[in-house]
């Protein structure tokens, strides 16, 4: 170890961190960047906290991380975390260095870190997690994440053998990572009144990932989350250690069966995703051999704050905010499916705001829109969509895609920029306006929501 280089990196990056905090800047990424530029092996050299819990996977990482933190924080133990920061290498480095002394001792014993699955290879070999939750593995950005097999390979290659995995047993891809490792699996039983969706364009598990023969399914929740069996090689769901169940989709009592005991967790806002997330977190506590009765009580007390969904009524209009993760066809297909389940929202005006570079006049790159051809926009034909606002550089591509999906041409309204979408909505034609924003455009979308509120208050009865 080059001691001088490491300590220079630590001291300078900590100074940068302190300075940025004093200036009330968002010190969640840059200090780590500085540290890694000075010492590329910074994470290898920095003293790890005694216990590290990590959360990775495609969808739901942030929610699961927040749930774990909300529970563990009740133990009054200080925790290193990146809940407000970045989940890639620089963000993780920042979170850890901030709680490390200038003599390279970790001031906290416990870390809970959300880790981007693509970046995990740069993080988990050094900050070796004791426990790692893999909530699910789906297609994501084609540019960055390539395909699910690529992410599985990264996780298989780089997760230390000492790490205890907590894995979704309904996910045929996530379960492939458990080979030769300690693991705890969780699953969610089919729900009696659950409406499953089996007609998506995206089902990467139709062929067995081991022998490539057709897979058979006794139950498909959505995409490849399923009860599967390969008739040729026998590949099937692993036995689940933590089995979650809901008596109905609206039930606020999540039943969890494990180790011959049944626990009941009260959930305020039940949903399939929330049930999976809760089961994952409970699986972690089972793996940690925690006092489960205490954890059940704590889990029942926490409230899930969603950055992915918001709803408000302004005069006679409903405004809904939905995160339409950019470059992610699964998340967008789930969103379109969700819209089909909300007939009470009446006539829909959809504002597409998920273009990554929409708010740059001259973006340096042209966003790859291939993913919109894997997104199930055809589901929108099942809703009463009266207006679709398409603004920004990619508006013509969206229009072409939606026409191919069968949407009515007269419903498609093109504006030069996303900012113009709000003014172009015909408020007489809609009951609900859905703002579909991306992870990159959250603040802009919130501004546009304010403009929309002002317009409705001025123009509607």
């Amino acid at each position, binding site marked *: 170890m080059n001691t001088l280089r490491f300590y220079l990196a630590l001291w300078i990056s900590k100074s940068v961190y302190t300075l940025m905090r004093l200036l009330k800047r968002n010190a969640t990424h840059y200090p780590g960047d500085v540290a890694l530029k000075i010492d590329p092996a910074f994470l290898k050299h920095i003293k790890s906290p005694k216990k590290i819990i990590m959360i990775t996977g495609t969808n739901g990482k942030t929610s699961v991380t927040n749930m774990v933190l909300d529970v563990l924080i009740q133990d009054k133990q200080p925790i290193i975390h990146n809940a407000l920061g970045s989940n890639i290498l620089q963000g993780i480095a920042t979170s850890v260095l901030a709680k490390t002394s200038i003599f390279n001792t970790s001031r906290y014993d416990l870390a809970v870190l959300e880790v981007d699955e693509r970046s995990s290879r740069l993080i988990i070999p050094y900050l070796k997690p004791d426990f790692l939750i893999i909530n699910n593995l789906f297609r994501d950005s084609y540019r960055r994440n390539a395909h699910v*097999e690529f992410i599985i390979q990264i996780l298989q290659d780089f997760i230390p053998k000492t790490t205890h995995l907590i894995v979704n047993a309904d996910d045929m891809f996530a379960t492939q990572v458990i080979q030769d490792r300690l693991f705890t699996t969780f699953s969610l039983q089919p729900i009696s009144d659950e409406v499953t969706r089996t007609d998506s364009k995206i089902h990467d598990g139709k062929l067995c990932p081991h022998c*490539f023969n057709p897979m058979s399914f006794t139950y498909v929740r959505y995409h490849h989350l399923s009860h599967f069996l390969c008739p040729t090689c026998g590949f099937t769901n692993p036995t689940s250690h933590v089995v979650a169940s809901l008596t109905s989709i609206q039930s606020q009592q999540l039943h969890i069966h494990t180790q011959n005991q049944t626990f009941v967790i009260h959930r305020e806002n039940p949903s399939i995703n929330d049930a999976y997330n809760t089961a994952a977190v409970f699986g972690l506590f089972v793996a940690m051999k925690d006092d489960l009765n205490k954890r059940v009580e704590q889990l029942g007390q926490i409230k899930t704050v969603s950055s992915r969904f918001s709803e408000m009524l302004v005069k006679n209009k409903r405004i809904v905010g939905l995160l339409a993760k950019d470059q992610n066809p699964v998340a967008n297909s789930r969103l379109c499916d969700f819209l089909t389940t909300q007939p009470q929202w009446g006539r829909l005006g959809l504002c597409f705001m998920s273009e990554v570079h929409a708010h740059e006049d001259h973006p340096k*790159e*042209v966003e790859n829109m*291939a*993913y919109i*051809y894997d997104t199930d926009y055809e589901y929108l034909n099942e809703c009463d969509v009266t207006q679709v606002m398409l603004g920004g550089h990619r508006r013509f591509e969206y*229009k*072409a895609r939606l026409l*191919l999906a069968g949407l009515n041409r007269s419903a498609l309204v093109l504006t030069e920029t996303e900012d113009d979408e709000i003014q172009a909505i015909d408020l007489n034609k809609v009951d609900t306006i859905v703002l579909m924003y991306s992870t990159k455009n959250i603040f802009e979308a919130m501004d546009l929501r304010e403009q929309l509120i002002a317009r409705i208050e001025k123009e509607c009865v």
Partner: protein
Amino acid sequence: MIIEWLNPEGTMLFGDRGNWMLLQRIFPEATLIETPLHSIPAFTHQHVDLLCMGSMNERMQTQMIQWLRTYQQDLKSRIQNDLGCLFFGNSQDILGLRITRKNQFVQEALGLYPFSVTQEAIKRYNALVGIQTKYGLILGHKSTFSLLHDTQELPSFGKVVQGFGHNIDDPLDGIHDHHMIATSLMGPMLVLNPHFTKHYLKEITQQEIIIPYYEDLELAYEAKKKEFELSSHFVYEK
């Protein structure tokens, strides 16, 4: 019109479905055959006008090679007899001599064309690509682990005017042999390049082609073309 897509479950990975959607709209009366992996391809025993294949993961490439090796000579002779073929994304890799992965594992490929492929597992090459072809300027994206080498004898699809070609130093891209076109451009190339689609389909069918939403697709193409002129994006993800 009979159109066959080889193993759509495994070779529509990166928006290739857009091509299939558009072909269905252009030829509503066509017979569309989706041939599952390891079954007998239709082109080997019946007339097919257009054969398609799209992007796949690297393990699927091995499966496709093992499957199609039986029909290698058949495919070769049908290409020489003007079978229309559109092979998108990394499906072109399997047409060459071999694929070398992580500098060690060598996968013998179909050997239809003289080139080899290297794949470094973690390096993903991403680029905006403009290719000047006999059909005009083709625009698209590449996101690939594959680079093609030893391509001197390849009948190329076109010359790259933006991005990179067979590999970082090669200005040529793709393969164009009779009516067979292979290109490393990913995703919905037919939708993104309507002038190409019209021209190429007319060439293989000898009929006038009416493309639904043609003006809308052209507007999208022209908008993209303007932006390409301002961009020179090329990266690989670490």
